[in-house]
């Protein structure tokens, strides 16, 4: 694992139109000063935003008073323990389970799907639901697709079901819907968040409009942003303008991919197959309407209805002491940073992760471990 040096990060930052990046950084500093609070906290809800911020060293140009927090934007990290246990119970009962690679090493109440695979369970990594359907077509026995991811990914699961699947194929849905989780974060008594940066590609599906009622209800601005360093900087600058002016509006700073209405074909397919249901997000809370579950019409492909899933044996194993010290929950809620956790970089590393945030390529802890976390170029230069 080689984290790029801070100098390299600073060089990368300049890879696209340095003048514009510098101007945006100066604008961000000016706006933060005009707001006058320390810190001014804003939250993004997308692992790819955190990757862009860390990879391109953007935190190095943020003013000290600006706190850009990663919220519950990593779908793997918020997949709850009982959901992983359900997939594990199926795999350990001899059912073939296919799933996205990221979730493999995330522990349920006692072990991970990777542990089950090592012990002989048939667990397959796929990159898409289509590959899982093909695996089912090519085999005799039952195959369960453990479906994780936010609405962008759930759309693919919905389309695959609508296109037709073989009788031995079922779905165990752990899909999550982001807008209700933003509500939870906004309502947390400890929350310091003054505005949200919404994920560009999820909004490609839902449209920027999905955030309008939220912005009005919580009196908080929302800006949809893309993933280029300049997109992120421009999105933050716009968000800080709205914070400064006290305008609880939705702004779309990623119009090349996102419209106000979103992708209606995708929305229609999504809601034909899934319905929102309350459920727990790991480390966050119970999120009303935060889980996407199969509608009754899809009972014949719903693994929860087709199989008798017994979680008791998994729950009987006590959780490890380390797991109890893990602060992933606070980190996902924006109440702590990876560096606030005693395990980070010590007992919990990318090679031996304790919490889900260190497992996924979109987890805050993994991203900070990879890219050096919170670069402070000024301090570096003084040394």
């Amino acid at each position, binding site marked *: *694992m*080689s984290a790029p040096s801070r100098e390299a990060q600073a060089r*990368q930052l300049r*890879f*696209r139109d340095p003048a514009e990046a510098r101007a945006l950084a100066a604008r961000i500093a000016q706006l933060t000063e005009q707001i006058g609070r320390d810190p001014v906290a804003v939250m993004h809800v*997308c*692992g*790819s*935003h955190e*990757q*862009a911020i860390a*990879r391109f060293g953007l935190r190095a140009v943020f003013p000290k008073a600006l706190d850009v927090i990663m919220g519950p*934007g990593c*779908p*793997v990290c918020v997949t709850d323990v009982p959901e992983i246990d359900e997939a594990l119970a199926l795999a350990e009962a001899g059912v073939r389970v296919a799933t*996205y*690679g*990221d979730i493999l090493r995330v522990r349920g109440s006692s072990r991970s799907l990777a542990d089950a695979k090592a012990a002989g369970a048939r667990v397959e990594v796929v*990159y*898409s*639901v*289509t*590959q899982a*359907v*093909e695996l089912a*077509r090519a085999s005799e026995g039952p195959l369960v697709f453990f479906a994780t*991811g*936010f609405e*962008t*990914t759930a*759309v*693919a699961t919905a*389309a695959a079901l*609508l*296109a037709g699947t073989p009788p031995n194929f079922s779905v165990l849905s752990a899909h999550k819907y982001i807008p209700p989780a933003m509500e939870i974060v906004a309502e947390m008594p400890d929350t310091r968040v003054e505005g949200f940066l919404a*994920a*560009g*590609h*999820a909004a*490609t*599906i839902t449209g920027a409009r999905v955030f309008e009622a939220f912005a009005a209800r919580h009196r908080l601005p929302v800006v949809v942003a893309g*993933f*280029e360093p300049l997109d992120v900087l421009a999105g933050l600058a716009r968000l800080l303008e709205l914070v400064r002016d006290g305008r609880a509006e939705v702004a779309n700073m990623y119009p*090349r*991919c996102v419209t106000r209405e979103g*992708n*209606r*074909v*995708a929305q229609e*397919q999504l809601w034909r197959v899934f319905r929102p249901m309350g459920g727990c997000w790991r480390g966050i809370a119970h999120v009303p309407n935060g889980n996407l579950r199969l509608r009754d019409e899809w009972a014949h492909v719903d693994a929860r209805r087709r199989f008798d899933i017994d979680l008791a044996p998994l729950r009987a194993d006590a959780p490890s002491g380390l797991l109890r010290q893990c602060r992933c929950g606070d980190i996902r809620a924006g109440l702590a940073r990876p560096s606030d956790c005693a395990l980070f970089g010590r007992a919990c590393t990318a090679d031996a992760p304790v919490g889900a945030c260190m497992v996924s*390529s*979109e987890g805050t802890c*993994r*991203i900070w471990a*990879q*890219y050096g976390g919170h670069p402070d170029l000024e301090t570096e230069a003084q040394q």
Partner: protein
Amino acid sequence: MCLGVPGRVIEIDGLLATVDFWGVRRQVRLDVVDEPVAAGDYVLNHVGFAIRRIHESEIETTLALYEQLLREADEDDLMAADVRGEVEASAKRRDKKGQ
């Protein structure tokens, strides 16, 4: 999983498009894209499905991040790995028709 990847459509067969990702040809499903797609168009893809047609004037800006990522990234780069994963999510191209 938030990051879709752009690719250029080479040909279309029903709901299946052959898409070029930086020289790698893969098959992408067109079930959920909300605009008509033709050969030569760029589409934004996520887990093997096109989720949006990218308009002509926006192609260059949309590609920039990915080109830089794939050019410079080392093996451990998380963002580049997610991009490669998205390309893997598209089915390998086959000569025979069918799912």
